[in-house]
């Protein structure tokens, strides 16, 4: 935006395009553009730069949600259940989280709760090695509940600090698979009272509006406490999390910025918003 241009309809149209192409979503984008238009009418907003500032502050306000504990606070062991649709980046994110924890000297147990997909356990096994975490696995095609139960039991016995349970990718439209997820959650609760203390929904930053529906359904099924937004190292902006924050009040806590073990950062609202406008 030419920084000192008047806030006229062409500037608002440009704003709308920026917001839409960041996957912000029609409703949220429309309300942001309306806000800018109202302020401009009342002469509270003079320049395109001023408009940009207003919108950035407003988006920051929406996504800057309070974060309760992440990776600690529950148990011990603190139990994290990782969920999300197919290919979002769950297994990779678990590897990165485990490495962060072991680097702090904490003992981490990983549960290979994806007993369905080809070589899912082998994949998590490599990550467990990289992160110096222990892996509890079960037979392929076996009951995921049994694997996470085993992992929770082991964590208690060994006084582990954290258990992270991987689950198979699933589309929220598959009711039996969502039921399976609820069952895994119940099993964790039976093994360790209060578990899972954290339910981390992994959202792929390249996703469009369907991510909001994903968040709704997973939240309804198992109560999502936090989001890890992956693949933000690409060209996608991950704007869908703004709609998710606005509607469901679920905070983004982690951001994936690559495929290597160190490519994980804490979510920073200011950084996220400024990248939207780049």
């Amino acid at each position, binding site marked *: 935006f030419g920084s000192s241009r008047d806030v006229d309809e062409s500037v608002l149209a440009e704003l709308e395009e920026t917001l839409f192409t960041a996957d912000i979503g029609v409703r949220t984008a429309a309300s942001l553009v309306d806000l800018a238009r109202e302020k401009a009418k009342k002469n509270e907003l003079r320049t395109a730069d001023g408009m940009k500032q207003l919108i950035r502050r407003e988006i920051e306000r929406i996504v800057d949600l309070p974060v309760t504990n992440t990776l600690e606070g529950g148990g011990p062991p603190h139990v994290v259940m990782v969920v999300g649709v197919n290919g979002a980046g769950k297994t990779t994110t678990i590897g990165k989280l485990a490495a962060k924890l072991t680097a702090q000297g904490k003992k981490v147990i990983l549960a290979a709760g994806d007993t369905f997909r080809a*070589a899912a356990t082998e*994949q998590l096994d490599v990550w467990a090695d990289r992160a110096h975490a222990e892996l509890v696995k079960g037979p392929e095609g076996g009951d995921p509940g049994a694997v996470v139960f085993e992992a929770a039991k082991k964590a208690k016995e060994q006084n582990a600090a954290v258990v992270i349970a991987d689950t198979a990718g699933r*589309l929220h439209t598959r009711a039996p698979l969502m039921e399976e997820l609820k069952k895994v959650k119940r099993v964790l609760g039976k093994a360790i009272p209060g578990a899972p203390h954290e339910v981390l929904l992994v959202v792929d930053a*390249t996703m469009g509006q369907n*991510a909001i529906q994903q968040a709704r359904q997973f939240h309804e099924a198992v109560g999502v406490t936090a989001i890890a937004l992956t693949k933000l190292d690409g060209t*996608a902006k991950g704007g869908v999390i703004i709609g998710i924050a606005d509607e469901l009040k679920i905070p983004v806590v982690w951001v994936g910025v690559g495929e290597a073990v160190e490519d994980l950062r804490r979510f920073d609202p200011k950084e996220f918003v400024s990248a939207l406008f780049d």
Partner: protein
Amino acid sequence: TVTKGFRAAKNRLAGKAEITPEMVDESLRDIRVSLLEADVAFDVVKKFVARVREKAIGEVVQTTITDKSGRKVKVSPGDHFVKICHDELEALMGPVDTRLAFKPKNQVTGIMMVGLQGSGKTTTVGKLATKLLKEGRRPLLVAADIYRPAAVDQLKVLGQRVGVPVFHEPGVAPPDLAKKGYAQARAQGCDVVIIDTAGRLAIDEELMQELEAIKKEVQPDNTLLVVDAMIGQDSVRTAAEFDRRISIDGFILTKLDGDARGGAALSIKEVTGKPIKFLGMGESMDRLEEFRPDGLAGRILG
């Protein structure tokens, strides 16, 4: 309002004795919202709406159309508007071309699968192998993802399930893996090689050069971009860049068994001109369908 989009547009025009251009424009606003919510790329929505407007202003106001057999028929304006939208969307996603390019039977045909991380390439390689087996061909899979943990294992498991050989050699770079894969195929009497590559960002220079190198080495007859149907506005950037760098022959849209509207289907076709060949409809090896525009058009319009 909850029922926005296509239905709202249709209802606005239903039962009206006459339709003004203003009413068409109002309906097109609903359509625009609906398409954006369906993840159709911003610029593609603009183009589509302009095209429909042109047709609609000309035709809908008349409410008498010439049907397929050349007769003049009276239709309700709402129904005709709906028909224009549907037809235009189908036309934009077509023409249908789900064929793969095959070499003569005594030679090895190559299919190279590329795409962003997690889009469904490895799974789709298994599905394609299943389909080709049914058609009497003899596929061999090349595990050329040397980065992702257990990617080779994953393809080997799928190969075993489907009943096709999987070629991999540790410590060999992907272009050479492809070349050796072809040699292996010839040695084993296989007539199709399907190359599974690592997920990558279109902006990753090094990895895009790797794809160029694989392509230069074996010149696959088919280069297919695998796209997750849930993808948002990034579909256009990604498809355009992959096509620009390595020239895509067609697309496969995966995970359509969810409730994503799949607007990317329209965007990627519009931006590259390349056809959508197949649709992934689930995780098991039999869940691959040939692309048909009508089902997808209805889903995108909403």
